[in-house]
């Protein structure tokens, strides 16, 4: 299977947040690399997705969809820098 990228998570994340998280910059907890969430290398399918840093391949973000809730694991991201509307 070919990986997608963080851009493909935009819809799932937009159901949770009122801002577009794929345009945010993450800072990788593993290597310190900073890039847009849209650039993460994305593995997985509808049930759960894992976004890896394209620089060091560490897991930056996990989204798991359960029937009645969503688990969002940002353990691999030191911080998220979110652009505000219009920037």
């Amino acid at each position, binding site marked *: 299977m070919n*990986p997608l990228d963080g851009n493909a998570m935009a*819809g799932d994340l937009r159901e949770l947040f009122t801002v*577009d998280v*794929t345009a945010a910059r993450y800072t990788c907890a593993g290597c310190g690399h900073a890039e847009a969430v849209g650039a993460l290398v994305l593995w997985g399918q*509808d049930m759960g997705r894992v976004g890896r840093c394209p620089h060091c391949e560490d897991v930056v973000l996990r989204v798991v969809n359960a029937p009645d809730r969503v688990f969002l694991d940002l353990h691999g991201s030191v911080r998220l820098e979110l652009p505000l509307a219009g920037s």
Partner: protein
Amino acid sequence: MARAALPGRLTWRAATLVGERWETPSARTLVLDVPDWPGHLPGQHVDVRLTAPDGYSAQRSYSIASAWADNATDKTVELTVQRLDDGEVSPYLTDTLEIGDQIELRGPVGGWFVWRPAQEKPVLLLAGGSGVVPLMAMIRARGAAKGKQPFRLIYSVRTPEDACYAQELSRRVRDDPGLDVHFVHTRVTPRKRIDVATINSYGWPADFTPDCYVCGPTTFVEAAADILVALGHDPKRIRTERFGGTS
């Protein structure tokens, strides 16, 4: 409206197929009527969800091919879908979906791989196969806005017959000042691949600090982005979108 329940958040809505056309023997453009569509930026995509009678559902992302203008009378949204023969969703969209049928759609989404007409830099678009779709939306949006930003598209495709929008692209090269298109054919002898020489010759010099958009299969995206960086382009000005092979 269901959306009113959670303001600002996104939900699924029904889209109706109101038109269609084949771009190549395996790529079909779907013209969709989506009630209350809020408009979109070129480069954004939608998620499409199909649900079987037994409740099984599959979801995929598809780039929007059309440009949006708030003042336009045509309020439809166009997706171009490449059929993957072993795919779960794309063969349904290309071969089965008929005019009047409905699909579930969520969007527009994505705020990173987008081009805004207010951006003033020259633009370099690198397309691999059906990765041309969101880049075409950018070219159309520039055309609709009569944008002056110099645009260059390098479009890697197997053969001339596999190129989407070929007629429209040649018309736009003639009619939209400042737009250039170069094709790379990977299955026509002599076979070519996107390489340093091609991007050096048909792209922009790094000194021009262009905004670069790369979209295609993962191997294409990684090769093209690496070449751009090697040619001195600022990684912050390179935006990428990978198309998966699972659709």
